[in-house]
Protein backbone atom coordinates (compact mmCIF):
# COMPACT_ATOMS: atom_id res chain seq x y z
CA UNK A 1 0.00 0.00 0.00
CA UNK A 2 2.90 2.28 0.83
CA UNK A 3 4.40 1.48 -2.56
CA UNK A 4 1.22 2.60 -4.35
CA UNK A 5 1.05 5.79 -2.29
CA UNK A 6 4.70 6.68 -2.91
CA UNK A 7 4.44 5.90 -6.60
CA UNK A 8 1.34 8.07 -7.01
CA UNK A 9 3.03 10.95 -5.19
CA UNK A 10 6.11 10.58 -7.37
CA UNK A 11 4.00 10.48 -10.53
CA UNK A 12 2.16 13.60 -9.39
CA UNK A 13 5.45 15.47 -8.97
CA UNK A 14 6.84 14.41 -12.35
CA UNK A 15 6.15 16.04 -15.70
CA UNK A 16 2.45 16.02 -16.51
CA UNK A 17 1.58 14.81 -13.04
CA UNK A 18 -0.66 17.77 -12.29
CA UNK A 19 0.74 18.61 -8.88
CA UNK A 20 0.10 22.27 -8.12
CA UNK A 21 -2.75 22.48 -10.61
CA UNK A 22 -5.37 22.43 -7.85
CA UNK A 23 -3.58 25.14 -5.85
CA UNK A 24 -3.19 27.35 -8.90
CA UNK A 25 -6.86 26.90 -9.72
CA UNK A 26 -7.80 27.69 -6.13
CA UNK A 27 -5.74 30.89 -6.18
CA UNK A 28 -6.94 32.04 -9.58
CA UNK A 29 -10.64 31.51 -8.91
CA UNK A 30 -10.29 33.29 -5.57
CA UNK A 31 -8.76 36.28 -7.36
CA UNK A 32 -11.55 36.18 -9.94
CA UNK A 33 -14.18 36.19 -7.20
CA UNK A 34 -12.49 39.12 -5.48
CA UNK A 35 -12.39 41.01 -8.77
CA UNK A 36 -15.95 40.08 -9.66
CA UNK A 37 -17.52 41.05 -6.36
CA UNK A 38 -15.75 44.40 -6.36
CA UNK A 39 -14.27 46.59 -3.67
CA UNK A 40 -16.98 46.05 -1.04
CA UNK A 41 -14.76 44.61 1.72
CA UNK A 42 -17.61 44.05 4.15
CA UNK A 43 -19.53 41.95 1.63
CA UNK A 44 -16.42 39.97 0.63
CA UNK A 45 -15.56 39.33 4.23
CA UNK A 46 -19.09 38.03 4.90
CA UNK A 47 -19.05 35.55 2.06
CA UNK A 48 -15.33 34.67 2.13
CA UNK A 49 -15.54 31.41 4.13
CA UNK A 50 -18.35 30.02 1.98
CA UNK A 51 -16.62 31.07 -1.25
CA UNK A 52 -13.36 29.48 -0.13
CA UNK A 53 -15.08 26.21 0.55
CA UNK A 54 -16.83 26.17 -2.82
CA UNK A 55 -13.56 26.88 -4.62
CA UNK A 56 -11.80 24.16 -2.63
CA UNK A 57 -14.52 21.75 -3.72
CA UNK A 58 -14.08 22.64 -7.39
CA UNK A 59 -10.29 22.49 -7.16
CA UNK A 60 -10.63 19.00 -5.74
CA UNK A 61 -12.74 17.94 -8.72
CA UNK A 62 -10.04 18.93 -11.22
CA UNK A 63 -7.74 15.98 -10.74
CA UNK A 64 -10.31 13.33 -9.80
CA UNK A 65 -10.61 11.69 -13.19
CA UNK A 66 -6.85 11.07 -13.22
CA UNK A 67 -7.00 8.89 -10.10
CA UNK A 68 -7.77 5.68 -11.95
CA UNK A 69 -8.00 6.55 -15.63
CA UNK A 70 -4.24 6.70 -16.32
CA UNK A 71 -3.66 3.36 -14.61
CA UNK A 72 -6.65 1.94 -16.43
CA UNK A 73 -5.53 3.06 -19.88
CA UNK A 74 -1.99 1.72 -19.63
CA UNK A 75 -3.06 -1.58 -18.10
CA UNK A 76 -1.52 -1.01 -14.67
CA UNK A 77 -4.87 -1.43 -12.97
CA UNK A 78 -5.24 -5.00 -14.27
CA UNK A 79 -1.87 -5.85 -12.75
CA UNK A 80 -2.85 -4.22 -9.46
CA UNK A 81 -6.01 -6.33 -9.32
CA UNK A 82 -3.97 -9.53 -9.66
CA UNK A 83 -1.26 -8.27 -7.29
CA UNK A 84 -1.10 -9.62 -3.76
CA UNK A 85 -2.64 -6.61 -2.06
CA UNK A 86 -6.32 -5.93 -1.51
CA UNK A 87 -7.93 -3.57 -3.99
CA UNK A 88 -9.43 -1.69 -1.04
CA UNK A 89 -5.97 -0.66 0.10
CA UNK A 90 -5.04 0.40 -3.44
CA UNK A 91 -8.12 2.63 -3.42
CA UNK A 92 -7.26 4.06 -0.01
CA UNK A 93 -3.65 4.68 -1.07
CA UNK A 94 -4.82 6.48 -4.19
CA UNK A 95 -7.32 8.60 -2.23
CA UNK A 96 -4.55 9.48 0.24
CA UNK A 97 -2.21 10.47 -2.57
CA UNK A 98 -4.96 12.63 -4.05
CA UNK A 99 -5.51 14.32 -0.70
CA UNK A 100 -1.80 14.92 -0.15
CA UNK A 101 -1.51 16.57 -3.57
CA UNK A 102 -4.76 18.61 -3.44
CA UNK A 103 -6.58 18.83 -0.10
CA UNK A 104 -3.53 19.34 2.09
CA UNK A 105 -1.88 22.07 -0.04
CA UNK A 106 -5.28 23.78 -0.36
CA UNK A 107 -5.60 23.89 3.40
CA UNK A 108 -2.09 25.29 3.67
CA UNK A 109 -2.57 28.14 1.19
CA UNK A 110 -6.12 28.95 2.31
CA UNK A 111 -5.03 31.61 4.90
CA UNK A 112 -3.36 33.51 2.07
CA UNK A 113 -6.54 33.45 0.02
CA UNK A 114 -8.55 34.27 3.13
CA UNK A 115 -6.44 37.39 3.55
CA UNK A 116 -7.21 38.40 -0.01
CA UNK A 117 -10.95 37.95 0.51
CA UNK A 118 -10.92 39.88 3.77
CA UNK A 119 -11.58 36.96 6.11
CA UNK A 120 -11.90 38.25 9.71
CA UNK A 121 -8.88 37.50 11.92
CA UNK A 122 -10.70 34.99 14.17
CA UNK A 123 -11.59 32.90 11.11
CA UNK A 124 -8.17 31.70 9.93
CA UNK A 125 -7.68 28.88 12.40
CA UNK A 126 -11.18 27.53 11.79
CA UNK A 127 -10.91 27.85 8.02
CA UNK A 128 -7.70 25.79 7.97
CA UNK A 129 -9.11 23.32 10.47
CA UNK A 130 -12.37 22.85 8.57
CA UNK A 131 -10.48 22.29 5.31
CA UNK A 132 -8.06 19.89 7.02
CA UNK A 133 -10.95 17.85 8.40
CA UNK A 134 -13.23 18.08 5.38
CA UNK A 135 -10.96 17.62 2.37
CA UNK A 136 -10.10 13.95 3.15
CA UNK A 137 -13.80 13.23 2.67
CA UNK A 138 -13.72 15.09 -0.66
CA UNK A 139 -10.82 12.93 -1.89
CA UNK A 140 -12.40 9.66 -0.77
CA UNK A 141 -15.83 10.49 -2.24
CA UNK A 142 -14.07 11.63 -5.42
CA UNK A 143 -12.17 8.35 -5.64
CA UNK A 144 -15.50 6.56 -5.50
CA UNK A 145 -16.76 8.70 -8.38
CA UNK A 146 -13.59 8.03 -10.35
CA UNK A 147 -14.13 4.31 -9.86
CA UNK A 148 -17.74 4.62 -11.05
CA UNK A 149 -16.84 6.43 -14.26
CA UNK A 150 -13.80 4.28 -15.04
CA UNK A 151 -13.41 3.48 -18.70
CA UNK A 152 -15.91 6.05 -19.95
CA UNK A 153 -14.59 8.28 -22.67
CA UNK A 154 -14.61 11.87 -21.43
CA UNK A 155 -16.07 10.70 -18.15
CA UNK A 156 -14.79 13.83 -16.39
CA UNK A 157 -18.01 15.76 -16.86
CA UNK A 158 -20.20 12.89 -15.75
CA UNK A 159 -17.89 12.49 -12.79
CA UNK A 160 -18.48 16.11 -11.73
CA UNK A 161 -22.24 15.76 -12.07
CA UNK A 162 -22.20 12.56 -10.03
CA UNK A 163 -19.84 13.75 -7.34
CA UNK A 164 -20.85 17.34 -6.64
CA UNK A 165 -24.19 16.37 -5.01
CA UNK A 166 -22.31 13.92 -2.80
CA UNK A 167 -20.10 16.79 -1.67
CA UNK A 168 -23.08 18.75 -0.31
CA UNK A 169 -23.02 17.51 3.32
CA UNK A 170 -19.29 18.13 3.62
CA UNK A 171 -19.71 21.58 2.09
CA UNK A 172 -22.58 22.50 4.43
CA UNK A 173 -20.80 21.56 7.63
CA UNK A 174 -17.33 22.57 6.50
CA UNK A 175 -18.41 26.03 5.38
CA UNK A 176 -20.52 26.39 8.53
CA UNK A 177 -17.49 25.69 10.75
CA UNK A 178 -15.49 28.30 8.84
CA UNK A 179 -18.37 30.84 8.91
CA UNK A 180 -19.11 30.45 12.60
CA UNK A 181 -15.40 30.55 13.34
CA UNK A 182 -15.01 33.80 11.44
CA UNK A 183 -17.76 35.56 13.38
CA UNK A 184 -16.73 33.94 16.64
CA UNK A 185 -19.84 31.98 17.63
CA UNK A 186 -20.25 28.44 18.97
CA UNK A 187 -19.27 25.85 16.33
CA UNK A 188 -19.16 22.50 18.13
CA UNK A 189 -22.13 20.98 16.28
CA UNK A 190 -20.98 21.53 12.67
CA UNK A 191 -17.42 20.63 13.67
CA UNK A 192 -18.41 17.24 15.04
CA UNK A 193 -20.72 16.64 12.08
CA UNK A 194 -17.87 17.40 9.69
CA UNK A 195 -15.51 15.13 11.57
CA UNK A 196 -18.09 12.35 11.72
CA UNK A 197 -18.76 12.65 7.99
CA UNK A 198 -15.09 12.40 7.15
CA UNK A 199 -14.49 9.40 9.39
CA UNK A 200 -17.59 7.64 8.10
CA UNK A 201 -16.72 8.22 4.47
CA UNK A 202 -13.08 7.13 4.90
CA UNK A 203 -14.19 3.99 6.71
CA UNK A 204 -16.88 2.87 4.26
CA UNK A 205 -16.29 4.21 0.76
CA UNK A 206 -12.98 2.45 -0.07
CA UNK A 207 -14.88 -0.84 0.08
CA UNK A 208 -17.58 0.50 -2.24
CA UNK A 209 -14.97 1.90 -4.63
CA UNK A 210 -13.08 -1.39 -4.77
CA UNK A 211 -16.31 -3.28 -5.48
CA UNK A 212 -17.20 -0.86 -8.28
CA UNK A 213 -13.68 -1.15 -9.73
CA UNK A 214 -13.92 -4.93 -9.82
CA UNK A 215 -17.15 -4.69 -11.79
CA UNK A 216 -15.82 -2.02 -14.14
CA UNK A 217 -12.63 -3.94 -14.91
CA UNK A 218 -14.35 -7.08 -16.14
Amino acid at each position, binding site marked *: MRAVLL*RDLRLAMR*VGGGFGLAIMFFLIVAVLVALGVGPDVALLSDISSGILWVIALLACLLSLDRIFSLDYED*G*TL*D*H*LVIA*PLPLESVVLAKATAHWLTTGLPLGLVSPLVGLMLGLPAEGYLWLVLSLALGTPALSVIGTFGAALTLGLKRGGLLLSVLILPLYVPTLIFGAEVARRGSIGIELQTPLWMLLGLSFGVVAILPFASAAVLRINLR
Partner: protein
Amino acid sequence: MFMVLSVQDLCIARSGQVLMTDVNFELAAGQALIFKGPNGLGKTTFLRVISGLQPALSGKIHAKEDSFAYTAHADGVKPSLTVAENLQFWADIFDNQNIDTALSAFGLNDLKSRFAGLLSAGQKRRLCLARMLISNRPVWVLDEPSVSLDTASVTQLEEVIKQHLQNGGAALIVTHGHLDLGPSCKTVNLGEYKSNRAVYGDGAEAFL
Protein backbone atom coordinates in the same frame (compact mmCIF):
# COMPACT_ATOMS: atom_id res chain seq x y z
CA MET B 1 2.94 -34.77 -12.41
CA PHE B 2 1.97 -31.78 -10.29
CA MET B 3 -0.88 -29.85 -11.88
CA VAL B 4 -0.74 -26.10 -11.38
CA LEU B 5 -3.92 -25.41 -13.30
CA SER B 6 -6.89 -27.44 -14.37
CA VAL B 7 -9.72 -26.05 -16.47
CA GLN B 8 -12.99 -27.96 -16.81
CA ASP B 9 -15.84 -27.29 -19.23
CA LEU B 10 -14.96 -23.62 -19.37
CA CYS B 11 -17.35 -21.45 -21.29
CA ILE B 12 -16.54 -17.80 -21.90
CA ALA B 13 -18.60 -14.96 -23.30
CA ARG B 14 -18.29 -11.32 -24.14
CA SER B 15 -20.91 -8.73 -25.16
CA GLY B 16 -23.74 -11.22 -25.08
CA GLN B 17 -22.00 -13.70 -27.34
CA VAL B 18 -20.62 -17.04 -26.27
CA LEU B 19 -17.09 -17.21 -27.61
CA MET B 20 -15.82 -20.61 -26.59
CA THR B 21 -17.45 -23.63 -24.99
CA ASP B 22 -16.24 -26.78 -23.25
CA VAL B 23 -12.59 -25.81 -23.00
CA ASN B 24 -10.79 -28.52 -21.03
CA PHE B 25 -7.09 -28.71 -20.30
CA GLU B 26 -4.58 -29.25 -17.56
CA LEU B 27 -1.27 -27.56 -17.08
CA ALA B 28 1.55 -29.27 -15.21
CA ALA B 29 4.50 -27.63 -13.52
CA GLY B 30 7.28 -27.22 -16.06
CA GLN B 31 4.87 -27.14 -18.98
CA ALA B 32 3.84 -24.42 -21.40
CA LEU B 33 0.80 -24.23 -23.64
CA ILE B 34 0.73 -22.05 -26.71
CA PHE B 35 -2.74 -21.11 -27.90
CA LYS B 36 -3.43 -20.34 -31.51
CA GLY B 37 -6.55 -19.05 -33.14
CA PRO B 38 -7.84 -16.44 -35.58
CA ASN B 39 -8.43 -12.78 -34.65
CA GLY B 40 -11.62 -12.15 -32.72
CA LEU B 41 -11.90 -15.68 -31.44
CA GLY B 42 -11.69 -14.50 -27.82
CA LYS B 43 -8.13 -15.43 -26.94
CA THR B 44 -7.59 -12.33 -24.80
CA THR B 45 -10.93 -12.84 -23.04
CA PHE B 46 -9.91 -16.46 -22.47
CA LEU B 47 -6.64 -15.43 -20.80
CA ARG B 48 -8.39 -12.76 -18.71
CA VAL B 49 -10.92 -15.31 -17.48
CA ILE B 50 -8.16 -17.75 -16.54
CA SER B 51 -6.21 -15.03 -14.71
CA GLY B 52 -9.30 -14.13 -12.73
CA LEU B 53 -9.80 -10.68 -14.24
CA GLN B 54 -13.17 -11.62 -15.65
CA PRO B 55 -15.77 -14.22 -14.63
CA ALA B 56 -16.47 -17.26 -16.76
CA LEU B 57 -19.96 -17.98 -18.05
CA SER B 58 -19.69 -21.51 -16.70
CA GLY B 59 -17.10 -24.13 -15.94
CA LYS B 60 -14.36 -24.47 -13.36
CA ILE B 61 -10.83 -23.18 -13.06
CA HIS B 62 -8.76 -24.88 -10.38
CA ALA B 63 -5.54 -23.18 -9.36
CA LYS B 64 -3.95 -22.07 -6.15
CA GLU B 65 -4.68 -18.53 -5.06
CA ASP B 66 -2.26 -15.92 -6.41
CA SER B 67 -0.87 -18.27 -9.06
CA PHE B 68 -0.96 -15.95 -12.01
CA ALA B 69 1.22 -13.24 -13.43
CA TYR B 70 -0.41 -11.59 -16.41
CA THR B 71 0.98 -9.65 -19.35
CA ALA B 72 -1.50 -8.01 -21.66
CA HIS B 73 -1.38 -5.89 -24.80
CA ALA B 74 -1.04 -2.77 -22.65
CA ASP B 75 2.42 -2.54 -21.13
CA GLY B 76 1.43 -0.95 -17.82
CA VAL B 77 4.60 1.13 -17.88
CA LYS B 78 4.65 4.67 -16.47
CA PRO B 79 6.38 7.04 -18.90
CA SER B 80 7.40 9.56 -16.24
CA LEU B 81 9.19 6.97 -14.10
CA THR B 82 12.58 5.51 -14.96
CA VAL B 83 12.97 1.86 -15.94
CA ALA B 84 14.35 0.99 -12.50
CA GLU B 85 11.60 2.94 -10.72
CA ASN B 86 8.93 1.17 -12.76
CA LEU B 87 10.30 -2.23 -11.79
CA GLN B 88 11.02 -1.24 -8.21
CA PHE B 89 7.35 -0.34 -7.76
CA TRP B 90 6.28 -3.84 -8.75
CA ALA B 91 9.09 -5.32 -6.66
CA ASP B 92 7.62 -3.51 -3.64
CA ILE B 93 4.13 -4.71 -4.51
CA PHE B 94 5.25 -8.32 -4.88
CA ASP B 95 7.62 -8.04 -1.93
CA ASN B 96 10.65 -9.03 -3.96
CA GLN B 97 13.64 -6.78 -3.63
CA ASN B 98 15.75 -8.19 -6.43
CA ILE B 99 15.14 -6.23 -9.62
CA ASP B 100 18.66 -6.75 -11.02
CA THR B 101 18.03 -10.31 -12.18
CA ALA B 102 14.94 -9.19 -14.03
CA LEU B 103 16.75 -6.22 -15.56
CA SER B 104 19.64 -8.29 -16.86
CA ALA B 105 17.42 -11.14 -18.07
CA PHE B 106 15.88 -8.75 -20.57
CA GLY B 107 19.01 -6.71 -21.24
CA LEU B 108 17.68 -3.60 -19.56
CA ASN B 109 20.70 -2.83 -17.38
CA ASP B 110 21.96 -0.03 -19.62
CA LEU B 111 18.52 1.57 -19.73
CA LYS B 112 18.04 1.48 -15.96
CA SER B 113 17.94 5.22 -15.37
CA ARG B 114 16.18 6.19 -18.57
CA PHE B 115 12.60 7.46 -18.38
CA ALA B 116 10.26 4.78 -19.64
CA GLY B 117 8.54 7.35 -21.86
CA LEU B 118 11.73 7.53 -23.93
CA LEU B 119 11.91 3.80 -24.58
CA SER B 120 11.06 2.23 -27.91
CA ALA B 121 8.03 -0.06 -28.16
CA GLY B 122 10.22 -3.15 -27.99
CA GLN B 123 12.14 -1.87 -24.97
CA LYS B 124 8.87 -1.07 -23.19
CA ARG B 125 7.72 -4.57 -23.96
CA ARG B 126 10.86 -6.00 -22.38
CA LEU B 127 10.31 -3.87 -19.30
CA CYS B 128 6.76 -5.15 -19.11
CA LEU B 129 7.96 -8.76 -19.45
CA ALA B 130 10.61 -8.22 -16.77
CA ARG B 131 7.73 -7.73 -14.31
CA MET B 132 6.90 -11.42 -14.78
CA LEU B 133 10.22 -12.37 -13.23
CA ILE B 134 9.64 -10.05 -10.30
CA SER B 135 6.19 -11.41 -9.54
CA ASN B 136 7.45 -14.84 -8.38
CA ARG B 137 4.18 -16.33 -9.57
CA PRO B 138 4.14 -19.93 -10.86
CA VAL B 139 1.84 -19.51 -13.86
CA TRP B 140 2.73 -16.88 -16.43
CA VAL B 141 -0.14 -15.77 -18.63
CA LEU B 142 1.28 -14.04 -21.69
CA ASP B 143 -0.90 -12.34 -24.26
CA GLU B 144 1.12 -11.77 -27.43
CA PRO B 145 4.42 -11.41 -25.52
CA SER B 146 6.61 -11.16 -28.60
CA VAL B 147 4.84 -8.21 -30.23
CA SER B 148 7.35 -5.51 -31.26
CA LEU B 149 10.34 -7.56 -30.04
CA ASP B 150 13.34 -8.00 -32.34
CA THR B 151 14.85 -11.44 -33.02
CA ALA B 152 17.44 -11.14 -30.27
CA SER B 153 14.80 -10.14 -27.72
CA VAL B 154 12.53 -13.00 -28.76
CA THR B 155 15.43 -15.37 -28.08
CA GLN B 156 15.89 -13.69 -24.69
CA LEU B 157 12.19 -14.17 -23.99
CA GLU B 158 12.38 -17.83 -24.98
CA GLU B 159 15.35 -18.33 -22.66
CA VAL B 160 13.56 -16.66 -19.75
CA ILE B 161 10.43 -18.76 -20.27
CA LYS B 162 12.46 -21.98 -20.57
CA GLN B 163 14.29 -21.11 -17.36
CA HIS B 164 10.95 -20.47 -15.66
CA LEU B 165 9.66 -23.86 -16.82
CA GLN B 166 12.82 -25.57 -15.59
CA ASN B 167 12.31 -24.01 -12.18
CA GLY B 168 8.89 -25.63 -11.97
CA GLY B 169 6.88 -22.77 -13.38
CA ALA B 170 4.29 -22.96 -16.12
CA ALA B 171 3.07 -20.69 -18.87
CA LEU B 172 -0.02 -20.03 -20.97
CA ILE B 173 0.84 -18.12 -24.09
CA VAL B 174 -1.21 -16.65 -26.88
CA THR B 175 0.90 -15.74 -29.87
CA HIS B 176 0.70 -15.44 -33.62
CA GLY B 177 4.45 -15.56 -33.92
CA HIS B 178 6.76 -18.47 -33.36
CA LEU B 179 8.20 -19.22 -29.93
CA ASP B 180 10.60 -22.14 -29.59
CA LEU B 181 10.21 -23.41 -26.05
CA GLY B 182 11.47 -26.97 -26.48
CA PRO B 183 9.73 -30.28 -25.79
CA SER B 184 7.77 -29.14 -22.72
CA CYS B 185 5.59 -26.95 -24.87
CA LYS B 186 2.37 -27.95 -26.59
CA THR B 187 0.29 -26.02 -29.07
CA VAL B 188 -3.47 -25.88 -28.68
CA ASN B 189 -5.80 -24.65 -31.39
CA LEU B 190 -8.51 -22.66 -29.63
CA GLY B 191 -10.56 -22.53 -32.83
CA GLU B 192 -11.90 -26.01 -31.99
CA TYR B 193 -13.90 -24.59 -29.10
CA LYS B 194 -15.44 -21.79 -31.08
CA SER B 195 -19.07 -20.98 -30.50
CA ASN B 196 -21.28 -18.35 -32.05
CA ARG B 197 -24.51 -18.67 -30.19
CA ALA B 198 -26.02 -15.80 -28.25
CA VAL B 199 -26.25 -16.13 -24.50
CA TYR B 200 -29.60 -17.42 -23.26
CA GLY B 201 -31.05 -16.51 -19.92
CA ASP B 202 -29.97 -13.53 -17.89
CA GLY B 203 -26.35 -14.29 -17.13
CA ALA B 204 -24.98 -10.81 -16.48
CA GLU B 205 -21.46 -12.14 -17.00
CA ALA B 206 -22.13 -12.50 -20.69
CA PHE B 207 -22.56 -8.78 -21.21
CA LEU B 208 -19.32 -7.62 -19.70
